């Protein structure tokens, strides 16, 4: 494998993505909403509800995930801590997923859409180098965006909850595992799904919409967490990450098999 070639393809794709306004605004908008907008809104909940007693209803099952020091918090504060630290944490995985899917769709389908694929196929890059370059172009910014957003989310959550909790408590071990272990796995899922989708569609928007359906997986995790069916404790998260990585390996191998010059050119 010639890494100079792989890096050149990935760098070129990222330069192109930077000039795609739809892609950039989608990523920025999503990042702002999930990392800043959403935690701020949730932080305002106790003020809006004025809750001071009773129970948390369906979220009561999550209470035992809280560190002992936080279990005695008033209801409203407990709700904010639970929502930001536990219930909504899986939603955060949408960032690496969507960034990977957007960049992947732009990178794979965009070449077809702009009729530049043929020129790329005439280069000496092997099929594997072309594929690796494209996967790298999707995965690297997704992981960087995920880590960056996680850092911002952590700062925002602590700014909102520190006065209630009386300490800087986020990220928890499970949130950290979610970002560092599950996040990259989800990024790879987004990229590998883009490759597969790109063999079937002709435009960036189509590819983007189809890979966007993957966010349902994340919603399922969130619902599982909220309903108490799948509490994302550390062991569960390690297992979920493993499952994602396993799916990634299968999808990436499948994508590499599909990514042949002959097949791409025959469809061009």
């Amino acid at each position, binding site marked *: 494998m*010639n890494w100079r070639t792989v890096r050149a393809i990935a760098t070129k794709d990222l330069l192109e993505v930077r*000039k*795609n306004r739809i892609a950039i605004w989608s990523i920025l908008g999503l990042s702002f909403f999930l990392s800043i907008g959403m935690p701020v809104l949730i932080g305002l909940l106790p003020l809006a509800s004025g809750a001071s007693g009773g129970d948390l209803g369906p979220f009561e099952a999550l209470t035992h995930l809280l560190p002992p020091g936080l279990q005695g918090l008033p209801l409203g504060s407990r709700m904010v801590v639970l929502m930001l630290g536990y219930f909504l944490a899986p939603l955060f995985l949408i960032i690496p997923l969507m960034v990977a899917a957007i960049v992947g769709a732009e990178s794979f389908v965009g070449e077809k859409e702009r009729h*530049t694929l043929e020129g790329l196929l*005439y280069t*000496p890059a092997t099929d594997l180098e072309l594929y690796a370059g494209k996967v790298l172009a999707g995965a690297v910014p997704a992981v960087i965006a995920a880590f960056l957003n996680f850092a911002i989310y952590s700062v925002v959550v602590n700014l909102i909850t520190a006065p209630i909790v009386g300490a800087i408590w986020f990220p928890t071990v499970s949130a950290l595992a979610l970002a560092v272990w599950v996040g990259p796995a989800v990024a790879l899922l987004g990229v590998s799904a883009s490759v597969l989708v790109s063999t079937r569609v002709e435009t960036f928007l189509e590819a983007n919409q189809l890979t966007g359906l993957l966010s349902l997986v994340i919603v399922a995790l969130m619902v599982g967490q909220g309903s108490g069916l799948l509490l994302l404790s550390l062991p569960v998260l390690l297992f979920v990450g493993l499952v994602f990585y396993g799916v990634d390996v299968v999808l990436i191998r499948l994508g590499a098999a599909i990514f042949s010059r002959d097949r791409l050119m*025959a469809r061009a």
Partner: protein
Amino acid sequence: MTMAIAADGLVRSFGTVRAVDGVSFEVGEGEVFGLLGPNGAGKTTLIRLLAGVLTPDAGSARVLGLDPTVDGSAVRSRCGVLTETPAVYERLTARQNLAFAADVFGVPVPDVGPRVGELLARFSLQDRAEEPVGGFSKGMKQRLALARALIHDPELLFLDEPTAGLDPVASRQVHDLVGTLRDEGRTVVLCTHHLVEAEALCDRVGVLSKGRLIALGTVRELSDRLLAASPVALTLLDPVTDAVAAAVGVVPGVTVTEREERRLLLAAADDGAAADAIQAAVRAGGRVVSAGRREHTLEEVYFALQGVPA
């Protein structure tokens, strides 16, 4: 002569359509070879097979001594391809486009900057080097695509419709470039349906029709094979008189095929009959300004091959 390309019975189908159907030909090193044929004749598919981008269903090829099916990457590293559409990255600048190509084609890192600068200057793009290519005219994009095809100093160039959509000045620049490439000893395969262009630039041509190579040779060879002897044009200073026309018409082996105000077109069986016809015209009082065979054009050859009257 060492062969740059040797194709033997190449076949490639897409579904039920045979895009290339048993094509065999050779191109010598340093030769400018034209691939002619209407749209859909199989020219582009043939280039893709030779560059190792498509795999043949049957047959084989050697390109620069390598099998493109097995050593596709090595073949492509020694070939430059200008695709039918320029296929440049419109969001990137001209310099970024060439730098990317230099990286992927393995130009040594210290040479990338100078090589990119040299090609930008050669193709008169240095003043727009830092602008996104999306704002370029079609001619500029084509020049950039040509520069990209040359970035790694290839031995063999495939130019697919290099002047399609270009204005006459830009077309002339491309023709000059092909001449320069020939002078540099590079092999050029030129796909075109511009017959005048092919006639002016190519040492030999191959004519494709429905995936089959239906003719191969120099324009003269094809003309001799396919068409009757070229007509002799006899041009007079004064209008052609009946006496002159009659005198020429009775020369054995000569037929007057066309009579214009000051010119006669003759079908002469051989050069001797043509010389007798000229003498007869002079004896009949005709003042001959010029006389000579008018060679068949590639266009006439091409239409004869396609079974269409020229």
